[in-house]
């Protein structure tokens, strides 16, 4: 195994209006790994994910996918790679949003196929085959022609997972994928993610679902106040005697 890590994020710093929300975050994810990020609201989990997916600009540190540098700071100024390079790098990852962000004016199938076709990965026929296969796998084949607004939240989130998967990313990010869902719908989405984990899809999941994080992750990161407070395997973290960590996990488990 001499493959470069899929994601290599080093010393990430980010602030909003003088308020430093990320102080020094480093995260390396290798192929097949499932990493969960937990932590209280405002700890910077989502911001870290947004920096990694190029939705927010970093203020310090470096970011690379499969060895291709997306951004790095040289002498204190951030330098992002050129447009072409960033376009290539965006192909490496997919992102599932908390509130789905499906395109409401497209059918479920078109939501999935259009990005594939526009990226030049496949022609229309191939993209549709790929889309239908994914929908079938996620139990949504009969919804291919439906519009997102007619689906339940859980179904919408599964469609958005299918949309991300159709691009065949090397790594898939989840930004609190079940926070907008009620407990019943949460279950159906978590089941899908568990299925992906079983197939060794590389994933980084920001979540508040402790039980799920414990079951699905190879590694869990606990963030607080913009820094990584602790990390390790689920067993290490859940059996840790760190007081802060225990309070947090205990609160959410009950």
């Amino acid at each position, binding site marked *: 195994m001499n493959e470069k890590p899929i994601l290599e994020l080093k010393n990430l710093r980010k602030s909003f209006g003088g308020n430093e929300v990320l102080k020094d975050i480093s995260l390396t994810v290798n192929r097949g790994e499932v990493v969960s990020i937990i932590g209280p609201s405002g700890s910077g989990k989502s911001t870290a994910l947004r920096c990694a997916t190029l939705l927010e600009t970093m203020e310090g540190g470096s970011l690379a996918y499969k060895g291709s540098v997306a951004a790095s700071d040289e002498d204190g100024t951030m330098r992002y790679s050129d447009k072409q390079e960033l376009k290539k790098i965006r192909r490496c990852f997919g992102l599932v949003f908390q509130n789905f962000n499906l395109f409401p004016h497209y059918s479920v199938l078109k939501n999935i196929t259009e990005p594939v076709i*526009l990226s030049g990965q496949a022609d229309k026929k191939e993209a549709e085959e790929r889309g239908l296969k994914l929908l079938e796998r996620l139990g949504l084949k009969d919804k291919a022609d439906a519009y997102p607004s007619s689906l339940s939240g859980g179904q919408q989130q599964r469609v958005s997972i299918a949309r991300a998967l159709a691009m065949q990313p090397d790594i898939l990010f989840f930004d609190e994928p079940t926070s907008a869902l009620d407990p019943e719908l949460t279950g159906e989405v978590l089941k899908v993610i568990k299925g992906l984990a079983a197939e060794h899809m590389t994933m980084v999941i920001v979540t508040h679902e402790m039980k799920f994080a414990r079951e699905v992750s190879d590694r869990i990161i606990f963030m607080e106040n913009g820094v990584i407070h602790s990390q390790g395997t689920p067993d290490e973290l859940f059996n840790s005697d760190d007081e802060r960590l225990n309070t947090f996990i205990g609160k959410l488990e009950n």
Partner: protein
Amino acid sequence: MKLSVMLTQLTQGMFVSVEIFLLTLLFSLPLGLLVSFGRMSKNKVVSAIVKFYIAIMRGTPLMLQLIVVYFAPFYIFGVNLKGFRFPAIIIAFSVNYAAYFAEIYRGGIEAIPKGQYEAAQVLGYNKVQTFFRIIFPQVLRIITPSVTNETITLVKDTSLAFVLAQAEMFTIAKQIAAKEASVGPLMVAGLFYFVFNFVVAYVMDRIEKKLNYY
């Protein structure tokens, strides 16, 4: 004057009104989109200039704008626009309506959640694809009722072309009314505008229904 003669003359006038109406829409709808981009531009100079333009267009009478477009070139540069009356009318109407449409577009564009842009970006859409495939179709649906309003107003505003003595429907109705000393022709003109707008409202309603597919 026989009724048939009057109706023929008014119908000819109506064709001119319809022409003003259609050409104004044709130019002002795309121009309005450009203006709204300028209005939302991150470049402060551009957005300030566009804001000023919109303020003038909305803040002064369209009738005055018609007069300015037609006569200002003569008073300022000594260029006589005689023979260019109709183009001058279309220009004045188009730049005026573009300002209103621009603000309608802006309202629609700003109503689209940020997440739509973010999803498109992550999925590899470039800026042009994001706007025309993801954002604009949703904007259209949001703005149709407001565009309908403006369009109906435009039908009636075409009568302002009488100030430049353009032989559109209202001008002709007024001439006949003066000659015959009767309000009849003006009433008939009123009926024409009403029917015209009835058709416009019907067409816009169909468009709205068509856009409401999701």
